[in-house]
């Protein structure tokens, strides 16, 4: 069984609008990390691998990330957590990339890789273009927050998609008549704590909501193993297709308008605490 996890590296430092007003600059203590929901997706893939291993089914987890040179660190981290192989599509695109472009690039890469590995079995159309049984990604990236890439990628690969998944179940009682690598049962989250039960045939794409699991830390043994492995590296031109122009453009970036006064308290920590106390007393909120 093969699982692909699509991850994105995002800035986690302070964000400021840059001088041109068209995009952002990262603050002083700049740091990068795997987008939180993608990390949940990865953890879920590793949990599936562990559960399948108990049933004697081996699972191979590939990681794909489109990003700058630094994204290699995130791929390494993912392999340290337990992924088997890394695919890095290098781009220096910094600003806004719409979901449609990223999804099409990923679809192009997936098709290319499957051809390279000669995985396509002709005659299985129209699903033969998906060399993975399961594709997982976060419900959205923490930076662009579009929630588009997953469902769009599923369309390009012509496989079913379920978004906002909070639970993946599968029958642990191995039954000769049931092929558990054929279909999985998931729950997706709606507003107000409502959950929808869904069974989906593989191959399928799931976008993972936070709270489904607690992503683990990379282990030393996995890191050592990952260091020996080579990340498969492509250039962004490899992922280009004929119609991959971006349908959207960002004309500027703004700070959201303040809905309330947001009165800033000044002075030392103690000054602020005392001032707040006084404000709350005046309003009868503190006795």
């Amino acid at each position, binding site marked *: 069984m093969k699982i692909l996890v699509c991850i994105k590296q995002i800035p986690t430092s302070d964000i400021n609008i840059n001088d041109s007003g068209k995009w952002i600059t990262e603050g002083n203590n700049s740091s990068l990390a795997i987008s939180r929901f993608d990390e949940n997706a990865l953890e879920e893939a590793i949990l599936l691998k562990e559960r399948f291993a108990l049933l004697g089914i081996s699972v191979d987890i590939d990681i794909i990330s489109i990003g700058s040179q630094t994204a290699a660190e995130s791929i390494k981290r993912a392999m340290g957590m337990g992924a088997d192989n890394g695919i890095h599509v290098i781009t220096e695109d910094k600003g806004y990339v719409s979901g449609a472009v990223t999804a099409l690039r990923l679809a192009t890469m997936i098709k290319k890789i499957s051809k390279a590995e000669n995985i396509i079995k002709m005659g299985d159309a129209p699903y033969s273009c998906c060399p993975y049984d399961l594709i997982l990604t976060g419900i959205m990236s923490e930076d662009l927050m*579009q*929630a588009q890439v997953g469902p*769009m990628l599923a369309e390009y690969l012509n496989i079913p998609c379920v978004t906002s998944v909070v639970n993946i179940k599968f029958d642990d009682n191995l039954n000769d008549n049931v092929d558990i690598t054929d279909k999985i049962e998931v729950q997706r989250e709606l507003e107000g704590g*409502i959950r929808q039960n869904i*069974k989906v045939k593989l191959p399928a794409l799931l976008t993972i909501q936070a709270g489904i699991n607690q992503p683990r830390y990379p282990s030393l043994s996995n890191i050592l193993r990952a260091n020996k492995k080579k990340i498969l590296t492509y250039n962004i031109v490899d992922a280009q297709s004929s119609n991959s122009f971006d349908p959207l453009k960002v004309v500027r970036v703004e700070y*959201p308008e303040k809905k309330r006064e*947001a009165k800033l308290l000044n002075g030392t920590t103690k000054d602020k605490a005392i001032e*707040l106390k006084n404000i709350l007393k005046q309003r009868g*909120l503190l*006795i």
Partner: protein
Amino acid sequence: MNTKTILVIAEYLDGKLNPITDELIACAIEITKIFDLKAKDISGVKAISEIKVIHVKGINPLESEKYKSSLVPIIREINPSFILMGHTSQGIDVASGLSVRLGCNCITGVNKIIYPEYVDVGKSEDSKSNILFSRLVFKGKCNAIVGVEKPENITLLTIQSGSFYIKDCCKEYNNIISNEEYYPSNVDDSTISLIEYGDIAYSRTTKSKLNEAKVIVAAGRGIGDKENIEYLKKMAACFTGSAVAGSRPLIDMGWLPYEQQVGITGAIVSPELYLAVGISGSSQHIAGMKDSKFIVSVNKDPNAAIFNFSDISIVEDCLSFIQAFIDNIP
């Protein structure tokens, strides 16, 4: 002049119309107003536009693959300029995929419609764009103002809830709004047979006690460690009728039980005082607490989104501030 159609896809759950639908209509009216303004600027006359609200019946809207397939021919027939759906769990499950099938533009999580500054002809890139759309990026710290490259194509928008409201002045647009029911038949799609939609489960029915609290002291990831919940409790103890709450990440990590979660997927609260400590302010959290009477936020990031919704902003390390607050209570 051709009539421009704005298509609103009414959202249903369990046969009941979801309130987001009103917000979609309010947003459609905003777009109509811009059509009018633009047309007046160019030719001095109002634009001819209509808002079509469609109610898709006889199909479970939670069966997204089927729903997508049934919407495609309806949309092709209507051929609208804009399609509006909610940026809700349903909208997210359907919209992006639908846009690929339609080959149309797709902008998700729109919170504002902006009249283009096209009067600056030749100066800015804005001059080319028709209408601009604002949407949150970077955990709500900024809005990206987005335009489409090909305005002649259909543009599908999902609308962030809490962004548009039906106001009195909307009444004058009543005559251009029509409601239509659609009963799709012969939905044909290869992916439908691959997915079985089961029941919905109201698994978490425990009523939240947060609604009774006069003061809510809520924490986010900024408090750093599970042990620090104790500080939060001490701070809450300074107030009468208080309760401790948390943002979603805290509940996901198991630091507080689900009953204490504030946000779209938790409790919607409006206490006398909401004290947000170490909460960055995701839109899903804001939706759960923005109607509180008085909001005080403590965060070490001066650009945290929560400050835009606060009466009092305190840029401080959470724990140091809590400590100072407790120490200075007589």
